[in-house]
């Protein structure tokens, strides 16, 4: 008996049906759980061309076999749906305590379809499942919603919910849990809103049995120590400002920043970075479930115009506001963080949507007439705050921003498209870290995103490599090489590994080999050992990487079936990228994106070949899919003319 419950709870909100379905046992070996199970489920459930806001688009929540256990940082779960933002494969991984609670309730997956006639929330207490009226919750923000639900259901529950942005179907709305845990990306909150589903609340009390307790306990301790000895535990997520500055060689800023040297150099970072937050505003640090890193600072602003502000966990997105929109004070950034969390709005997409609006304003494409008097000028923090409110509430110019990267420029017209640089419908700006990190944004299966590949090691400066990545040269093919040479194989390796970590229920932040502890090359093996000793399902590190490869290929196939081609493996507007005068002047020859554009075709075909895909069209070929036991996926792709030609290169191992 395997200690990994293969139960999927299905709730149809149109009919009010609740059913329990068994997930095929073979899927646990093929897809592991979490992101893997969800990817498979979405592939099977969605007909190509389906409108993501159609009730038939499923909202899928999945945990992994390690979720909610003693395995360090095992608080994660994945929310998956076809994305209303990008119209392709969408998912977002989230921390906090919901995943572990779901594990104790006994479900590995929850799938919600249909549309409730009236606002509803789902309450789950182990076997008991109820669809309840949420009329009194509709209109509340995510913090108020959770307070209300706790008052009604008890303090010992965990809740996922949407805020104003999700209710209003803002195409990059997220789903929140707690003060600041968010499944932020790809617009899963809008999918939830389209179902009239305000929240999902659960309590679980079941035991999680352990197949080999001694081995599991010892391996957990080993990984725990690995993470503690890495560099993360000293830092909070806002320190990414400093880390990015170091890894990018001082290159932090976007075109709108008036004084790039100030912002990227010492002064800007000192004023808006993580160290300042920790010193001046942090009350304490908070962690997700069983995590030794505790990356979330709880902050309190005591005085000044933002006095009384209280919140938690500014993350990656918030560290990008200063170097993108030229905001030079930390307090408004913390205020924005609270707004993103309370409205349930993806901070990353918002920032680059706002940058697009600012550029349109700067170039006379829009004026105060369009913005209702808002001066969209670089550094105007008040304007940014207004824009967040308007976007979540779909008022004023926010009506246009709310439509997301693909639709907003079309809606506005006037040649505004050139100022928007998304990939596959999602934006994150050009990566500021050199090396394989940059092309990783382009190959990501959910649009521009740093987390699919998180391919950082080649960009790490030499002295840090020695300290934190002593085995860099030896642990993976191609990963040790500096610059972009050999990056195709390295990128593939990291994408596969991260997909497997996401499927396992662990957090990739401490557990991914790209940012994690020393002795990185042993990590797939250690995680496999965690899974084996917990579940009794025997796995090796190589199995884990193969599972990751299968998951990644299935996501790629989903997108190919939707009609994506090699042209989509690119930024939407090269002009937007090249229109970075400050950067180019200040850092000649050091812009990572320049490297990328110089060698784009060669780089991509190297990656496709490493993956065993057609190097010209970027499409998957039958042989590669068959090797991954995905022959039926090849059949399906053939029906949609989305299968590549047999390439002369065979898939490389690893």
């Amino acid at each position, binding site marked *: 008996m395997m200690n990994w419950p293969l139960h999927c709870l299905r709730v149809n909100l149109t009919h009010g049906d609740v059913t329990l379905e068994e997930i095929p046992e073979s899927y646990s070996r093929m897809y592991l759980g979490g992101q893997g199970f969800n990817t498979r489920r979405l592939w099977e459930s969605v007909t190509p061309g389906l409108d993501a806001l159609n009730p038939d688009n499923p909202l899928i929540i999945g945990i992994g076999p390690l979720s*909610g*256990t*003693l395995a360090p940082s095992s608080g994660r779960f994945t929310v998956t749906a076809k994305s209303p933002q990008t119209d392709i494969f969408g998912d977002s991984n989230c921390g906090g*305590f919901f995943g572990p609670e779901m594990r*104790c309730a006994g479900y590995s997956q929850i799938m919600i379809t249909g549309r409730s006639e009236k606002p509803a929330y789902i309450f789950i207490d182990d076997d008991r499942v109820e669809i309840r009226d949420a009329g009194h919750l509709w209109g509340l923000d995510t*913090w108020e919603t*959770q*307070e209300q639900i706790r008052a009604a259901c008890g*303090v010992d529950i965990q809740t996922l919910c949407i805020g104003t942005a999700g209710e209003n179907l803002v195409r990059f709305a997220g789903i929140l849990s*707690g*003060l600041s845990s968010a499944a932020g990306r790809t617009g899963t909150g809008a999918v939830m809103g389209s179902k009239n589903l305000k929240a999902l609340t659960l309590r679980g*009390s*079941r*035991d*999680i*049995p*352990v197949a080999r*307790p001694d081995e*599991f*306990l010892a391996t957990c301790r080993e990984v*725990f120590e690995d993470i*503690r000895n890495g560099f993360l*535990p000293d830092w909070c997520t806002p320190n990414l400002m400093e880390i990015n500055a170091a890894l990018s060689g001082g290159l932090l800023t976007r075109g709108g920043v008036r004084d790039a040297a100030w912002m990227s150099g010492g002064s800007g970072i000192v004023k808006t970075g993580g160290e300042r937050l920790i010193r001046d505003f942090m*009350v*304490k*640090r*908070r*962690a*997700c*479930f*069983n*995590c*030794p*890193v*505790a990356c979330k600072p*709880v902050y*309190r602003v005591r005085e000044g115009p933002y006095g009384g502000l*209280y919140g*938690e966990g500014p993350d990656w997105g918030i560290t990008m506001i200063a170097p993108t929109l030229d905001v030079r004070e930390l307090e408004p950034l913390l205020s924005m963080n609270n707004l993103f969390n309370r409205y349930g709005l993806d901070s990353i997409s918002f920032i680059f949507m706002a940058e697009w609006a600012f550029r349109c304003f700067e170039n006379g494409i829009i004026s105060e007439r369009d913005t209702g008097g808002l001066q969209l000028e670089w550094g105007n923090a008040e304007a940014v705050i207004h824009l967040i409110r308007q976007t979540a509430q779909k008022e004023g110019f926010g009506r246009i921003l709310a439509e997301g990267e693909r639709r907003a420029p079309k809606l506005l017209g006037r040649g505004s498209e050139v100022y928007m640089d998304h990939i596959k419908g999602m934006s994150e700006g050009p990566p500021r870290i050199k090396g394989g990190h940059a092309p990783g944004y382009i190959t990501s299966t959910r649009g521009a995103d740093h987390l699919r590949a998180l391919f950082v090691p080649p960009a790490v400066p030499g002295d840090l490599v020695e300290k934190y990545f002593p085995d860099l040269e030896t642990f993976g093919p191609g990963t040790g090489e500096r610059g972009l040479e050999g990056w195709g194989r390295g990128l593939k390796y990291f994408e596969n590994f991260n997909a497997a970590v996401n499927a396992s229920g662990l957090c990739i932040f401490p557990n991914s080999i790209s940012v994690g502890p020393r002795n990185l090359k042993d990590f797939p093996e250690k995680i496999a050992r965690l899974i084996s000793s917990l579940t009794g399902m025997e796995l090796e590190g190589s199995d884990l990487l193969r599972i990751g490869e299968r998951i990644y290929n299935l996501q790629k196939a989903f997108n190919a079936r939707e009609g994506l081609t090699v042209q989509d493996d690119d930024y939407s507007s090269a002009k937007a990228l090249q229109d970075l005068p400050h950067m180019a002047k200040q850092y000649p020859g050091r812009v990572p994106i320049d490297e990328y554009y110089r060698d784009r075709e060669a780089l991509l075909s190297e990656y496709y070949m490493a993956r065993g895909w057609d190097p010209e069209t970027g499409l998957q070929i039958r042989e590669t899919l068959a090797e991954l036991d995905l022959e039926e996926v090849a059949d399906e792709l053939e029906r949609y003319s989305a299968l590549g030609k047999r390439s002369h290169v065979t898939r490389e191992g690893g």
Partner: protein
Amino acid sequence: MMRISVDVNKCTGCRTCEIVCSMVKNGLINRRRARIRVYRDEMTGLDMPVFCIQCTDAACMQACPNSALSQDDVSGIIRVDAEACTGCGQCADACPIGAIVMDRDAEVPPICDLCGGEPECVAWCPGGALHLGEDASGLDEYVKELQGLPEKRIDKWRRWAEALTG
């Protein structure tokens, strides 16, 4: 006498202590069976571990109608005589800080025994919030925070959190 103590400002609310307790004591994972509990208030940022502090003249011991509980003279650890215990739960009701929570699937109450002198929760605590030592100076304050009925406690913590963060 050795006791566990907590620096609440260092508690990150991660619940590692609960998980490792159930793992070591029950050989499985279920934080609802742990001998240490973290009361975590998502919205105020308060995280408060609750554990047995080996009170003198322990109320749990006195409340037991079957004399199933006894206290070690030297360590202060409360021992449960599984033969005599009927699982009535009066010890849990009597505990002034709510450190005993009956396990619905176990026959006797789960009471902390300090893991024989080296508590696993202390060894694993990632934030360095839990300590084992003889210093009892923070004890009164800790007890004061936790006193009251469980349902009222949350209001106390909320006020406490506001004082902490305000």
